[in-house]
């Protein structure tokens, strides 16, 4: 086998970076819900899939202009996320997080089926937000990948500021740590939780719209959520910078792993995660703390 050229390495790094950013976008949705409510949304990948399908509906099936379609998709998905919490997840307020975890697993199954029944089980193409590629010498990068990187950076910084400086951000942290006390403080726990779900569905939709041109729209595209999960875990589940770092780590190492073991493509992410957890069982930026007794 030939050695990789510098250009190849660059290319793979860039691909890893943009793939990592896509993982991050999904992971941010996941971590956001966790950070603010300590619920784990196993259906985040399916939220992303729904976002892609809704975009497909507006942009391809209904033929709306791209950015109008995107706007509508984000609105619809925001409402969808809010609704999922208000109608379904909220009923489990106070149940162990594990129960919510399982609930979202079932939700994922149902969402995949619903999407398939509405849009079919095939693979569909959705145009890229900015078509075409950026070519720098031998290295090619899709404009939409660059957009993904920018968006991820923007969202991470925005969320950091939100949790750091806003009253509601702090309230969300509080409610994830002690629901009863949060209620006692007069924090509208239920409404904030739904808002968080809406936000995470919107981020999921962004990821879906950006991912769609790369991997096609299909009911199974949500499986990428597992890798986002792995990334978030590597970073220390619950930390947004951690999630981004973890996803980038996984995104960047993955292609090199695949090249080294071409017949084992796809498991690199999990091995990296496992390796990190062996050394740091709580991930890079640990979110689990020792209890004081």
């Amino acid at each position, binding site marked *: 086998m030939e050695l990789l050229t510098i250009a190849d390495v660059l290319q793979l790094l860039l691909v890893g970076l943009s793939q990592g950013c896509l993982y991050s976008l999904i992971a941010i949705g996941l971590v956001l819900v966790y950070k603010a409510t300590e619920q784990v949304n196993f259906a985040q990948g399916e939220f992303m899939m729904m976002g892609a399908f809704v975009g497909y509906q507006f942009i391809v099936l209904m033929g709306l202009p791209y950015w109008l379609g995107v706007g509508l998709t984000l609105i619809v998905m925001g409402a969808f996320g809010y609704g999922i919490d208000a109608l379904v997840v909220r009923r489990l307020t106070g149940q162990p997080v594990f129960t919510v975890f399982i609930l979202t697993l*079932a939700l994922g199954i149902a969402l995949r089926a619903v999407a398939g029944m509405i849009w079919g089980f095939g693979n569909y193409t959705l145009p890229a937000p900015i078509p075409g590629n950026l070519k720098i010498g031998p290295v090619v990068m899709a404009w939409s990948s660059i957009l993904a990187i920018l968006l991820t950076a923007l969202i991470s910084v925005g969320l950091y500021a939100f949790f750091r400086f806003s009253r509601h951000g702090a309230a969300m942290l509080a409610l994830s740590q*002690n629901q009863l006390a949060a209620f006692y403080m007069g924090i509208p726990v239920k409404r904030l939780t739904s808002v968080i779900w809406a936000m995470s569905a919107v981020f999921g939709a962004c990821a879906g719209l950006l991912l769609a041109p790369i991997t096609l729209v299909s009911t199974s595209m949500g499986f990428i959520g597992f890798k986002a999960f792995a990334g978030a875990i590597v970073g220390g589940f619950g930390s947004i910078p951690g999630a981004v770092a973890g996803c980038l780590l996984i995104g960047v190492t993955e292609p090199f792993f695949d090249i080294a073991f071409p017949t084992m493509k796809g498991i690199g992410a999990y091995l990296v995660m496992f390796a990190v*957890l062996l050394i740091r*069982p709580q991930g890079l930026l640990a979110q689990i703390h020792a209890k004081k007794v």
Partner: protein
Amino acid sequence: MRVLFRKSYLQDIRLFRDGVQAAWYGGFLALALSAPLWLDGYFLDELALVYIYAIAGLGLMILTGFSGQVSFGQAAFVAIGAYAHTILMGRYGLPFVLSLPATALVAGLAGAAVGRVCSRMHGLYLAIATLSVAIVTERLLGGGGAFTGGHRGLPVPEMTILGLAMDDSWKTYLVNLTLFTGAILLTRNLLRTRSGRALIAVRDSEVSARALGVNVAFFKTWAFFLSAAFAGVAGAMLAHAFYYVTPEVFGMNESIRLLLMVVVGGLGTIHGAVFGAFFIVLLPTVLSLIKVWLPAAIAQSGGFDSLIFGLILLVFILFEPDGLYGRWQKVHHFFSVFPMYKKRGFQRQKTFLKTERLR
């Protein structure tokens, strides 16, 4: 309402709470044993499958329900069991009665290895770590070349026990029933002894468990060992039921299904594993039986089955977070106090969560 008078400590220790309960279980066992007399092959096979899944479920229950370690990788151990058994019997010619315990040991050791490595992980971290074990195992089995038969897998040798060919539904049914009963007994025994309680201690408070002398890492590993051994036995029996083992059989989906099973059944109870197995195994069957009555446009559309499956699970978790067994207890309570039942007498009070980020 039946009131239980305790007259000796043994009452809390022995297998059944009282004679009435013993009679119930005896009745169930008799019913199960006699099933081949009044059920046709189809239902026998389905029931056998229920037993097999229940064995795997009991294993997962020990791990997740009792020791509190969420595993998304149970299918990996089922797979290891299925392959170990097939290879031991097929390639090394071990007889069934030796191969099965050996399989349990192999799978158990694999589980212990994973458990040992993961003993510092908790909750979600552990869940995803074990999920990756399942994903990687599937791929490794597929890439295992001649030893595992690659993606094509391996044909499973006929089941012969001490020279008797198990070539009929009722025979395999009885074998599975026996193993299932055995698994229940072992689990029950575990729970009424010291190491079973250690698992519960680890689940509820590691700090306290340590203060009382429980070696937390060791017992986590032990739970993994037991659960994987159970899974291995289930895998071996699944292999026989499927005639053919391929890596696909034991993918991530199967892991998720197993976890859903114990949750729907009711986490943390032995009954839960059994109820869950009935639910998960028989639901598709029931669905396809009732589909006949539904309008074709709905019933024939792709996705209908998974939609209903997902929705039923959803509704279940929403309205009965304690699982099927929890529901059963309520029904039971209703009948035992029948004329005096107050609807809100079983009201779920509001509960509130505290962070699980503290260990």
